[in-house]
């Protein structure tokens, strides 16, 4: 079970990112727990400056804009 946190104040792209993570995980058959982090202080605590950000098992893998599907697959498989 991987824990994926999507960091973002709740903009359209953040929602889209959550959905992309769920879809890609389902496609790969990986069990994930997706959490949304919307608190500004918490987001900044991860050291990013643009949203949406993605944290997988405590490691920041992405910041700013929608992720690429190919990258999502790599991160989820890592």
């Amino acid at each position, binding site marked *: 079970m991987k824990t994926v946190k999507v960091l973002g104040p709740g903009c359209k792209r953040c929602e889209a990112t959550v959905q992309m993570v769920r879809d890609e995980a389902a496609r790969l058959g990986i069990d994930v727990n997706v959490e949304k982090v919307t608190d500004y202080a918490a*987001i900044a605590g991860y050291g990013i400056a643009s949203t949406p950000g993605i944290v997988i098992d405590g490691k*920041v893998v992405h910041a*700013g804009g929608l992720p690429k*599907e190919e990258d999502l697959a790599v991160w989820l498989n890592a």
Partner: protein
Amino acid sequence: MTSALRGASRHRPTWIWCLGVAAFVVIWFAVYGQLAPFSEGAVGLFPLAKGSHAYEAVKFFLYDTPKVLMLLTLVVFGMGVIRSFFSPERTRALLAGRAEGVGNIAAAVLGIFTPFCSCSAVPLFVGFVSAGVPLGVTFSFLIAAPMINEVALGLLFALLGWKVALTYLAFGLGVAIVSGWIIGRLKLEGWLEDWVRNLRAGQADLPANRLTAVDRIKAGIEAVKEIVGKVWLWIIAGIAAGAFIHGYVPSELLVSIMGRDTWWSVPAAVLIGIPMYSNAAGIIPVVEALLGKGAALGTVLAFMMSVIALSVPEMVILRKVLTLKLIAVFVAVVASGILAVGFLFNFVFA
């Protein structure tokens, strides 16, 4: 898009993408060259007397709309590709710990190229300040990023020529650099909201994103879809307003209100611009029409900067991180800068 299609586009070779871009540019120039005869012909289809107010207004609209949309598409695509080389995180790493002065200049220039959306203004502000970017340098970035963007520069270039576009760029940078520097000198860190001041975060160690040439072309296409898709209505509304001014508003009236000899028109333009909220796309066709009727360039540029750089929605968003006092200082400093630009411009180009 089906997943099969997506799979196919993933593996399409680079040369096809490059060829596609080249073909697009060639067709673009071919079509662009035909716009003037097209508008001449199209306006003839309307039952309007040549030289009448309505004829002039319709012709303005028919010529400007395709011209502006086409130029905007090209500029936004180019900027989308360039921006794929930048990210807020990388910009922050370049700015962190930098001295004021040089830092303000670098921040304002990077503000032009770094991808920025107002929905991410707060994470960006907090991310910058908590990672050691000085407050004044952060402000230089935050002033330049929305004010000097590809839509504003592209449209100014398209409608008013490269001289006006470059002037706007230079003076916009000037306002961002000097305003940020002044805010830094005032030492207002204590006026940030407490949670921002107390937050100390590092910089995330992101894996390098390896973008290929195709990824960058795709980034350009995405930018066109997103930006042109969002602003085209504003542009058409702006051109319609501009067409009305062009056809119907008498020059004498405008010159008396916004002409060079009316000293109070610059402060009035800045004050009216603050509560007004439009993006560059809607305001620039109006600017073009105003200039055509004899309004002074400095007055019009000041109005435009004020509308774009100082907006109430942005202040509401920034209220989450700045105290009201700090927002007031921010508005006062930037408005003074814009005022100075307006006066200087009208004086120099008299």
